């Protein structure tokens, strides 16, 4: 039959072949594939590693598509933005340490808090959770790769370019200054002339595009690439958490993309979505923004719950109690999260009776989280505890998130919210939720899985120091803010008068912030040092029960030479049952096993794409389009041309690859 292989060679294809196709592999042409045995031979292992490895060199680095390479870059980039956002916060705290401080003026301060919020929400918290999933999910479900590996690379580059654009603007003193929430009309054309807000709105386009792509990738990976036998109800709880998160991303992100695009068109081409004088509505922005913004909190927090379940199970030496309740709680949280956005708008003139509904929903969402907390406590009480730093970090959740959740109940009540809304009470609340629910568990997770990707353990001693510094510093920094809010200190003020009586608590908060920063610095030093000086880890340093610990540390480029067959929820803890692994998948080319969605029955073999620089080029072209359209709407028109070229080349069928795939199909 005539397939893509029969297409006549074109100049374009020749150019492409020169650019990329020879990059990775010597041509295997249509030789019959080498299939793996169970257990795999050393030769098969090294063949597999070669065929999944990213090509060397600079062009190779830009062509990389292996999920571990992209995932590592993704996590490190997000952590880089975390450091940047933290430094901005430290500057803010220094400014607020004294009343009427002249350290930072209003113009810079407003940029600082906008950049801090934007960085932490859009460039750190959501991306880092997806990035961890890019690294971990394929390993935890026994897959050789993540789905759509090129799209994965593209999503990373788009995210990176969006973040760099925002920081480039900030360093040129055209950073956004209307808050991470960018309420109209303050962020509209009349009250924010210039390009500052455009950079913010376009950053949304970048990061949300990336997040949506990652959601598609992760859902597909979880649904189609699970090892045979890993039915949905045998999936690790962390994988469940990421599946739920990815679905939330798909429903939440479009709202903010629409909102920010409408803002850009208001600013750039004179539409009036948000202009009340022309029939627009300023509150429309808030509805759209919070319809995304509130679920966003949960899509930062739910991966944290996944980390907790993974770490607690390993270090309590037993499966987490109440698996079905845990899964249902995650799903319930995801649904409820879409029904409480109005609690950010209680101070607006919306109908009072309607607000009560959102009070009830906001309180109700505490139930699934309570269920999970109780299940974890049950797990800890009946387990035997292996007391290591990952456990220490995730257990901080119980004190910190619990307090944040309870202050959340207060904010859910309309009358109480009218007092503490937009005050420092909310600043305290949200940091207790996000740092307790996401950052501490994330750090625990990084320490926990670090040996898997570096082959070395992080230092326990430094880990304990960093934990206690961060924990004490965090509470010193943020607990006083509850009081500041109750004493009437509003958020987002660059200074406050001496007569307010807020200076003592502010000074304490600044001191705490510096201690917290020291703890974080120690963690990063530990992260950096241990990659060379850490204790060698071996494949399974913690005695974990999930599949990622079955492969070497660091893993083979193809993850599992013989794809495991799963017979239970804790495959490494349960006695080995025949069959233990899948034989007969090719190891000298990129072949993966696709399984059915519910039962994970082996369904078909699929040939995966090879590395190529075109996702990088495509992301570059996309960035040019997005950034250009800040300055002229015509950029959307001419910017399409390079994007179309890059995407066309990305998908251009290559003779060699097609021949390879055909050989695979006709193999025994």
């Amino acid at each position, binding site marked *: 039959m005539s397939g893509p292989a029969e297409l006549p060679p074109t100049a374009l294809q020749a150019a492409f072949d020169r650019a990329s196709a020879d990059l990775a592999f010597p041509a295997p042409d249509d030789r019959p594939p080498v299939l793996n045995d169970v257990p795999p031979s050393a030769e098969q292992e090294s063949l597999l590693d070669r065929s999944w490895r990213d090509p060397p060199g600079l062009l190779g680095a830009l062509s990389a598509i292996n999920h571990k390479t992209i995932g590592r870059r993704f996590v490190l980039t997000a952590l880089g933005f975390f450091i940047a956002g933290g430094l901005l916060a430290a500057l803010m705290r220094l400014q607020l340490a004294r009343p009427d401080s002249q350290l930072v003026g209003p113009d810079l301060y407003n940029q600082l808090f906008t950049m801090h919020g934007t960085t932490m929400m859009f460039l750190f918290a959501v991306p880092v959770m997806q990035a961890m999933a890019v690294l971990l999910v394929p390993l935890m479900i026994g897959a050789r790769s993540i789905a759509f590996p090129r799209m994965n690379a593209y999503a990373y580059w788009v995210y990176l370019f969006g973040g760099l654009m925002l920081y480039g603007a900030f360093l040129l003193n055209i950073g956004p200054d*209307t*808050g991470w929430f960018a*309420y109209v*009309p*303050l962020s509209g054309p*009349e*009250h924010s002339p210039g390009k500052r807000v455009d950079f913010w709105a376009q950053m949304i386009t970048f990061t949300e595009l990336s997040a949506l792509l990652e959601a598609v990738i992760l859902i597909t990976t979880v649904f189609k690439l699970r090892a045979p036998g890993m039915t949905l109800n045998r999936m690790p709880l962390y994988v469940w958490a990421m599946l739920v998160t990815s679905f939330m991303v798909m429903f939440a992100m479009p709202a903010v993309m629409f909102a920010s695009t409408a803002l850009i068109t208001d600013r750039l081409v004179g539409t009036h979505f948000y202009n*009340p*004088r022309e029939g627009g509505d*300023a*509150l429309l922005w808030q509805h759209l923004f919070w319809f995304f913004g509130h679920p966003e909190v949960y899509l930062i927090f739910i991966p944290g719950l996944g980390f907790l379940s993974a770490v607690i199970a390993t270090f309590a*030496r*037993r499966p987490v*109690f*109440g698996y079905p309740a845990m899964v249902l709680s995650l799903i319930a949280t995801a649904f409820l999260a879409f029904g409480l956005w109005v609690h950010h708008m209680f*101070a*607006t*003139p919306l109908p*009072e009776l309607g607000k*009560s509904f959102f*009070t*009830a929903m906001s309180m109700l969402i*505490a*139930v699934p989280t*309570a269920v999970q907390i*109780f*299940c974890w*406590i*049950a797990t*800890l*009480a*009946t*387990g*035997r*505890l*292996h007391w290591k730093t990952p456990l220490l970090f995730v*257990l901080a959740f*119980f*004190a910190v998130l*619990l*307090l944040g959740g*309870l202050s959340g*109940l207060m904010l859910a*009540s309309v*009358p*109480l919210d*009218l007092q503490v*809304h*937009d005050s420092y009470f909310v600043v305290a609340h949200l940091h207790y939720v996000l740092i307790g629910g996401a950052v501490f568990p994330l750090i625990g997770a990084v320490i926990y899985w670090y040996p898997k990707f570096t082959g070395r353990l992080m230092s326990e001693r430094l880990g304990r120091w960093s934990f206690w510094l961060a924990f004490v510093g965090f509470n010193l920094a943020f607990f006083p803010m509850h009081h500041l809010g*109750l*004493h*009437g200190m509003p*958020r987002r*003020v660059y200074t406050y008068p001496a007569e307010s009586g807020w200076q003592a608590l502010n000074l304490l908060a600044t001191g705490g912030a510096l201690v917290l920063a020291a703890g974080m610095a120690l963690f990063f030093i530990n992260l950096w040092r241990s990659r060379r000086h850490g204790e060698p880890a071996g494949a399974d*340093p913690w*005695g974990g029960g999930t599949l990622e610990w079955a492969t070497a540390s660091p893993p083979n480029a193809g993850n599992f030479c013989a794809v495991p067959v799963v017979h*239970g929820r*804790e495959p490494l*803890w*349960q006695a080995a049952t025949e069959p233990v692994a899948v034989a007969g998948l090719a190891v000298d080319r990129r072949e993966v096993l696709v399984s059915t969605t519910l039962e994970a029955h082996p369904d078909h073999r699929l040939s995966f794409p090879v590395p190529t620089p075109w996702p990088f080029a495509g992301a570059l072209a996309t960035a040019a389009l997005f950034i250009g359209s800040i300055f002229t709407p015509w950029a959307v028109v001419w910017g399409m041309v390079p994007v179309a070229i890059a995407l066309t080349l990305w998908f251009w069928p290559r003779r060699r690859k097609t021949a390879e795939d055909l050989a695979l199909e006709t193999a025994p």
Partner: protein
Amino acid sequence: MQDVLHSAGVQAGHILDLWRLMLGVCAVVFAAVLLAFLWAVLRAPRAGRDTSPDLSALQHNEPRLLRRVAWATALSTLLLFGLVGASVWTDRALAQLPLHGALHVRVTAHQWWWDLQYDDAEPSRIFTTANELHVPVGRPVILTLLSDDVIHSFWVPSLAGKKDLIPGRTAQLQFRADRAGTYRGQCAEFCGAQHARMAFRVIAEEPAAYEAWAARQRQPAAPPADALRQRGQQLFLAGTCVMCHNVGGTDATGRRAPDLTHLGSRQTLAAGTLPNAPEPLAAWIRDPQSHKPGTNMPGHDYSPEDMQALVAWLRGLE
């Protein structure tokens, strides 16, 4: 005073009661869960990497644990229902503030000051002031909240919860001051460069004192009493000040900036930025940008003598 925990009005009082209830319930829950957690962590035996995992949970259910988790969940749900009930109850109490004989004030927020117009059935009794809301003790106040530019939020923690002022929408806020005093308020919604310096004061006074104040406010500005003040008035009326400011009884009828008819009677300048005294006033007129960077007021370079005259006249507007 600017404090949620010291209420001086019935609305803030209702919310303070709710706060106490919620704080109590949440503190008990926090302590209970944390103790359960600590108990779990302390009683569980220690293990190492090679401790063989306990897989009994995979083979059979754990009914004892299940019962405890179910009870804890049921109790939490019950408490949450209680809190929702308390919240709705407080909402109801807030909505039932008796409004008979209420004072009506129209508040228009600007970047970064507050325009206050005291309404009256009789048009000649309507008057305007800025940044300082005088209210009589014991009489309900209905604020009609409007914004001229971006979203602001009116918040006096000691008297009531906050309410947003949104361009294109009208909101209402009702409260009653039950104790005489001066209560500080501040814009609570980020509104641009000087969000931090958009404060105001609510001065609650006995009805007689309030009426006397209101009667003075209804008067036009007193004519300058001496030559110095006459010179000050001339400078004011001949300069650019009149483009934005209004001074009742003179030719200055600008509406883009605070009404200055009775500037001398106010406690602060520039929405709580500076105390109202001769030196800060002169400093403010000379270089407002150094005190409130971004403010819409331009600086004015008067000679020391002219400045003295201008300040004397403005201070005399009581």
